[in-house]
């Protein structure tokens, strides 16, 4: 079974690489198989790791607890399991998606969407503020504490000042409601220079990672697959 697996994997690998030359039946085959298999896998995962443990299990436990309540065999555990009944709410909200199938009731899907979007927006505000704005502003200021204490080397001092200049100029580039003229134009030009340097650095730094993936793949073809032939 393992050797078949290696051959299948190697065949599909080569199919995908054929895309580098041009679109062709092999690539089309691999692409469509890939889409089909991945959708299937996502369905499996969302049922087995989402619906069953989070909706089905608490709810069915709650229903048997409810039964225990009726026949009078309540225990502290079944009392606790009763909370699972609340899971009916999200299930009902989720079911509203099917309102899409009837054109008259399409508006009902706004409920789950509005709730999820509201949730995302609410969580984002304090967390983004704290982890990005607070932490990054603080990180820009902090080195100067060491400067006051006299523990910052000349190079570090230079770096800290450079970072402050860079942050302010880059952020100036993002000013939308004023025309970029005069000093603002000047600052935002420096900001663009910082951005370009940043992008160049990130690009150059990525090459390594991408090559790593290719090396790994070539290693598979040469060692695992070719190795199984010779």
């Amino acid at each position: 079974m393992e050797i078949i697996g290696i051959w299948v994997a190697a065949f599909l690998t080569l199919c995908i690489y054929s895309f580098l030359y041009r679109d062709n039946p092999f690539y089309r085959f691999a692409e469509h198989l890939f889409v089909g298999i991945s959708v299937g896998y996502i369905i499996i995962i969302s049922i087995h790791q989402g619906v069953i443990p989070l909706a089905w299990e608490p709810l069915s436990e709650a229903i048997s607890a409810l039964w225990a309540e009726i026949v009078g065999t309540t225990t502290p555990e079944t009392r606790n399991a009763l909370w699972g009944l609340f899971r009916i709410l999200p299930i009902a909200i989720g079911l509203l998606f099917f309102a899409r199938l009837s054109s008259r009731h399409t508006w009902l899907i706004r409920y789950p969407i509005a709730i999820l979007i509201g949730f995302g927006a609410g969580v984002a505000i304090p967390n983004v503020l704290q982890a990005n704005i607070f932490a990054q502003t603080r990180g820009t200021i902090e080195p100067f504490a060491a400067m006051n204490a006299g523990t910052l080397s000349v190079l570090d001092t230079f770096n800290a000042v450079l970072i402050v200049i860079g942050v302010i100029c880059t952020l100036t580039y993002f000013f939308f409601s004023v025309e970029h003229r005069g000093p603002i134009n000047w600052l935002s030009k420096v900001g663009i220079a910082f951005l370009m340097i940043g992008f160049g650095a990130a690009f150059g730094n990525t090459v390594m990672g991408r090559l790593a993936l290719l090396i790994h793949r070539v290693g598979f073809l040469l060692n695992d697959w070719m190795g199984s032939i010779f």
Partner: protein
Amino acid sequence: MKRQIPLAFCFLFGIAMIFTQFSPHSYSQAVYKEVINWGLIISPFAMVLAVVTLIQTHVTRINLRTEHWQYSLIVFVGMIVMVLIGVPFGPQNSIVEWLYNNVQVPMDATMFSLLAFFIASAAFRAFRARSFEAFLLLATAMIVMIGNVPVGDLVWNKVMSWMPWTDGASWLRQWILDVLNNAARRGIILGVSLGVISQSIRIILGIERSYLGGGD
């Protein structure tokens, strides 16, 4: 009313979530945890609809015999095999695992590795010193690339041996990443964060409501 009530829900959940971020009390944390689970329970229902659209797309292609319609059959084969075995027997079933490891994983990895080729062709095409900005992009990319491989320091230590310090190539790369790149990234992050916050406020207050679609 068909718009107002969902917007009210959006507002309610938004404000409640902000509150839970500031309130460590067990009640507010319990609410927070429950709502998180709600999100997870709601999503799979939308998944059903999405898969229906996928099936519709490909059934139409097969029915109309559009160009390359045969490949739509392959989508179905892949999906149906996975679902028929995986849904009743779970993701740890040996056939599902075999398909996953020998079909999906290699294709995932191969698609990703295409980037090694694309990054080379993109670099070759885009890195031309057409302007000062383009030159900065090009120059820093080159320096960082050289600093990223051990050979950079090897060459530095040979050629620049008269300099007081060794391993200059990787030092320079690190300095660019630590200082210049850091400053630029920080600027972007701060800007993006302001954008996120402002967008979130507009959403919570119902100023941004286009996601609800039209109608009454």
